[in-house]
């Protein structure tokens, strides 16, 4: 049997949607027995949500005031302790998982595979490298623990309807005091979340200013879409960092992706390859974004956005 432990990401008592995608990845491993670990201050609601994911055998709940807000240095020794007896330890390839899982792997002396996009066997996986310009098939040694982060855009969420038992666990591990959470500034909005939205409208350098970037917001609102941005738009301060899409930002897989005034650098394209339909609007007919677009429209975004709105 392959015993897989998935580390749950959660915020404000809500389970992150990436966790159900990690379950799908784990379920693709033959003979999988899937557990979810919830580290929280008060994690009953999160544990219940995790237990309701189909295919999950058990939820391990570790409650400790030190567990929230999550700090990798505090969680890692606990995860390593709980990982005993598991063949695989998975986390989502979000900033939470990217921060935490390698620290866990080092404590376990286990290798890590980052951004698993496909499962071929319990030891063989596929993952993108070189900004998605190549896909590597990697074999991990059998009979040894393996840590991985799951490229969530590659997996559908596992269905609901699970009835796993929640087991409270007490861990006897010393927690470090060298790391202290100070604050988090998150722009809360009613807009759909970039990572899970069905539609995304993204703006690039061509927007030219923070004020003009409001055009992207307006169109996104009309479409019920989340907002994304290229690195250039984030660097220039038109959009906040959490909206960056790409190799080193968020990897997304919406039904509809609309790229406006974005040239289509490889680092950006790797973040949108799994989108169902890509629309590109750019004044340069030679822009590389058109090579991946299902629908391309050449022209000036400042006149085209209002025209699109008129036609909606």
């Amino acid at each position, binding site marked *: 049997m392959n015993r897989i432990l998935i580390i749950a990401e959660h915020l404000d008592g809500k389970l992150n949607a990436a966790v159900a995608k990690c379950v799908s990845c784990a379920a693709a491993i033959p003979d999988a027995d899937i557990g979810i670990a919830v580290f929280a201050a008060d994690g009953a609601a999160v544990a219940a949500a995790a237990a309701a994911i189909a295919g999950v055998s058990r939820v391990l709940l570790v409650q400790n005031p030190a567990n929230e807000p999550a700090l*990798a240095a505090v969680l890692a020794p606990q995860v390593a302790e709980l990982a005993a007896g598991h063949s695989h330890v998975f986390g989502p390839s979000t900033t939470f998982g990217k921060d935490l899982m390698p620290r866990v792997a080092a404590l376990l002396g286990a290798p890590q595979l980052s951004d698993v996009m496909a499962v071929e066997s319990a030891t063989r996986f596929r993952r993108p490298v070189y900004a998605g*310009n190549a896909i590597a098939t990697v074999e991990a040694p059998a009979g*040894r623990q393996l840590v991985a982060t799951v490229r969530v855009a590659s997996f559908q969420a596992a269905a609901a309807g699970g009835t796993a038992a929640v087991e409270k666990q007490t861990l006897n591990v010393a927690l470090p005091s060298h*790391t*202290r959470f100070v604050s988090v500034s998150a722009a809360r909005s009613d807009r759909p979340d970039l990572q899970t939205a069905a539609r995304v409208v993204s703006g690039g350098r061509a927007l030219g200013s923070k004020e003009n970037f409001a055009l992207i917001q307006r169109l996104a609102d009309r479409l019920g879409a989340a907002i994304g941005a290229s690195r250039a738009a984030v660097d220039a301060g038109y959009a906040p960092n959490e909206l960056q899409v790409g190799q080193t930002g968020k990897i997304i897989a919406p039904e509809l992706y609309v790229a406006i005034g974005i040239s289509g650098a490889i*680092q950006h394209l790797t973040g949108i390859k799994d989108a169902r339909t890509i*629309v590109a609007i750019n004044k340069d007919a030679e822009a590389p974004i058109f090579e991946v677009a299902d629908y*391309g*429209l050449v022209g000036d975004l400042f006149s085209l956005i209002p025209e699109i709105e008129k036609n909606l």
Partner: protein
Amino acid sequence: MQRILVSIKRVIDYNVRVRVRPDGAGVVTDGVKMSINPFDEIALEEALRIRERGAAQEVVVLSIGTDDAQQQLRNALAMGADRAILIKTDQALEPAAIARAMLAIIEREQPFLVILGKQAIDDDCNQTGQMLAALWDRPQATFASKLELEGGKARVTREVDAGLEVIEVELPAVCTTDLRLNEPRYIKLPDIMKAKKKPLDVVALASLGLEIAPVLTTLKYEPPPQRRKGVMVKDAAELVAALRQKGLV
């Protein structure tokens, strides 16, 4: 001496369109431009600024790889690093092995701060800094977009999915860089000349006494599936009509 250690990986330049070799054993590297990993350039720039503010006395750059990595170390010296160390090996090492080799140098050099890139743009692992912090049993501040030092501590602003997170870590600590931390300086010609006289120590990996064997095996590399080229529409009305027909708006 207040010392900062910065890791420098030699990678295919980010502007190169990387292609998989026909035999699937790797990617084409012949005649391809190689550079310092962009995140490591940001790491070095940050270390230099800290030194220039007087909060550190020395910036040491470290690379692990073949002799060719001396070029990137020379560029790092030209940017302003004080000295360089190359841990020489012809083996391609995994992040865990890199972290162990770095730790061996840390034990020698006793830096109060180690800055790495958050991710190497070739293997895209995003692991080494976190693994190093665990092995060293020190704090980690990953994906940094702001780094402030004050009284034995670092206050680091991190780019996370939710927005910006601030944490405080005791020194010594490991920090990994994100894109917005700074804009690296350009190298000036006279600096390249000066860099030639700066010390660059070459240490054989074997001399560190670590037992390092590859754990993961890459069986093959393949080009990614290509998206089918779509259609060009003539105006906004045609675009909206097409999307409406597909049920997307």
